[in-house]
């Protein structure tokens, strides 16, 4: 079933997946410091991005107006 994905959500999910693979790569025994640092740096950027997306924030609540609903459904 195809779903239209929110690009922001997609990015967060992708970022988390990439992070997971970076951690696995870092845990592998044969990573040298230079490559490790590059991965680490990429990871830090991803963590920052994800934290930005996930931080605690006030919820946004909107109520659909019936007139708008009528208009939209007539499109």
């Amino acid at each position: 079933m195809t779903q239209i994905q929110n690009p922001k959500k997609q990015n967060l999910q992708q970022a988390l997946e990439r992070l997971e693979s970076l951690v696995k790569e870092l845990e592998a025994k044969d990573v040298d410091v230079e490559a490790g640092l590059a991965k680490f740096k990429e990871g830090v950027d991803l963590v920052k991005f994800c934290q930005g997306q996930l931080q605690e924030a006030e919820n946004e609540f909107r109520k659909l107006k019936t007139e708008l609903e009528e208009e939209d459904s007539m499109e």
Partner: protein
Amino acid sequence: MGIKTNTANGGMQESFFDRSENLQLENDGDGNVVYSVAQCVGQINEAVGRLGVVRVRGEISALSQSRGAMAFFDLKDASGKEYVLQCSIFGWSFSKYKHFLEDGLEVVVHGKLKVYEKRGSLSFIADSIEPSGEGAWRKAFEELKKRLGAKGYFDESRKRQLPLYIQKIGLITSEDGQALHDFRQNLGNYGFSILLYPVWVEGDKAEASIVKALQWFNKNKPDMDALVLIRGGGGFENLKVFNSEKIADAIVSSRIPVITGIGHEKDESIADYVADKHLSTPTAVAAFLKARREDVMRGLDMLWEGLQEGMQDIIKEERLLVNTQAERLHRGFGKVFEGFANLKQRLVRARYAYEKQVYVYLASVERAQSMLTSLNPENVLQRGYSIAFNSRGETVKSIEQIEVGETAMVKVWKGKFSALVERKFK
């Protein structure tokens, strides 16, 4: 069928009486009105028509399957009084209900009353039939559940996966119910974006408004992460709309995943079964979304820790490697130093050997010198010998080397002198 009409003076008058006045009625000798049969039936239909759509509760009996285009049944008074309404329903409409209708079932029939002109009997023409009483609803519910189950509506494989990150929520519920309050109260503040589509959650308008809301989000807000359909607790009468087949269809057709939380813990509904995720109450849905968000955040924390640990391990390993290398280097230097010390020692030893050799040479030189000294011809001259040189400067060892008349040079120990050769002797 007009119930009321405007009169010339602008007032409202009952059409029944209007029409009565306009009918060409007979009067008998005493001045009483006499109707024709057609007029009488017409008048009755006018009168019952004024009732519009009526809802009548009763028990089904004498249910007979479609004869031609119609189906028939009697609606008996549920309290056991011997009152009966003869009912009819169009076949296409009947097919929607026949799966749960049976004699003795308590139902509420929606429809209009009409006298059949040809038979003169009053008939209740049903538009829709719904179960009445918990038992009837239970039966209808089980029936629908079985049917939709057979269509695969409840299959887990059909259901959409909820995205990991749910942020945009399309909320479908009553705008002034407890459900909305409970939901918002328990969601936590994680920057959720909630768009409420207010709907009726019970009553006649509920089914259509919920279906419309589900369709509206899919059409106009396809980027929603999830649709949340909730309703607070209530009796089965309050919750029965959530057993609607149309709502089930709308949930199945939704491209956006649907989460339900309807009624109390024990309540179950068709909407719940069809939903991609169902929780027991509106509060539970909010708690689920909150926990899911917290899981993602915890997951991120763990990944962050994993990242740091991974890096630390690499650095630790590298440091260990550096230490090992340093140690090896140190050991290497040790060897170099050792070699150097060796060399030095060897040099010292070599110098001794050399010096010794030098002494040996010196001794031989001395010896040679003394030997040479003893061989020096001057030593012989000292003893009184002399050496004669001819005019060519050759040492004269034989008389052949010098001629008479030639001047020879004679070297003695101290000085030299010339001598003229007068005679040679053999």
